[in-house]
């Protein structure tokens, strides 16, 4: 069991470092076990260094940097152990336009092996959807769903 955990951990670590550099356009990221001698019990440290910056503690990262780093970790796990379905509720809300574009690239890549259901208000994210559902409350308090044709939202 310890062997299996360490194997998965190392694979996620590699993916995390690669995806982080992709979406941040550089910098470094790593995952470190608090106590490598005891892999089944110890905690996991996350280390992030955006490009051009000194290594900073996670708390000093900006709102958008934190969201992007967390997205990189989530998608690293998805690459190593894809779950069939993944539901993401407005995870792009703190990102600026350039980072939304990078996020969308990553989303397209992950969606080859995972079905992704994503709630969003950002136009760029909507445009990459294969299927799009609109939710309304024509009658107050009562939700209805309708499907939106690709030609209506893809520019």
């Amino acid at each position, binding site marked *: 069991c310890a062997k299996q955990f360490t194997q998965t*951990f190392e694979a996620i670590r590699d993916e995390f470092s690669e995806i982080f550099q992709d979406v941040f356009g550089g910098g470094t990221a790593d995952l470190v076990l608090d106590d490598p001698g005891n892999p089944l019990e110890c905690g*996991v440290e996350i280390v992030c260094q955006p490009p051009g910056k000194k290594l900073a503690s996670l708390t000093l990262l900006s709102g958008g940097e934190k969201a992007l780093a967390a997205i990189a*970790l989530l998608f690293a796990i998805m690459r190593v152990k894809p779950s069939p379905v993944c539901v993401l509720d407005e995870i792009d809300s*703190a990102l600026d336009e350039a980072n939304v574009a990078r996020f969308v690239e990553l989303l397209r890549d992950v969606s080859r092996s995972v079905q992704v*259901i994503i709630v969003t208000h950002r136009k760029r994210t909507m445009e990459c959807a*294969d299927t799009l559902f609109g939710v309304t409350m024509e009658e107050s308090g009562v939700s209805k*769903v309708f499907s939106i044709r690709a030609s209506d939202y893809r520019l």
Partner: protein
Amino acid sequence: MYLKKLSLYGFKSFAGRVDLDLTPGIVGVVGPNGVGKSNISDALRWAMGEQSARLLRGSKMQDVIFAGSLSRRGLGYAEVSLVFDNSDQFLNIGFDEVTVTRKVYRSGDAEYLLNSVPCRLRDIVDLFSGTGLGREAYSVVEQGKIDAVLSARPEDRRSLFDEAS
């Protein structure tokens, strides 16, 4: 495996029956504030076995039943069904299509069904265990919680890696 269909009846703001036919790849859900988008994400978590009313933004499990609006009365139960295309036998249970249904009544009584056959919550949790779906999973990220994994304490982050191994 992918989710082929999601059916809601009486779940939170979904008073009438609503069916979503889904495709593999990226499925977008859009709309103004307060119309019920996150309620769809809650419906998925709930049908996959979520037991914490608080994680579903309520205080007791009956809070997921349509409570009524200014023009409609509340309902007596909520029901959500997930229909998975399992033709790749990802879930090793010998069916090409797997339907998971969960119901809760005002009384608090709950029902679980697997391909329309009554079962226990335990059966659904076992079905999903190790797939990344279900309760402890990393596969549902709630609104505003994306950076929770970064702010958690190191020992709390473990469960993410345990679930994946």
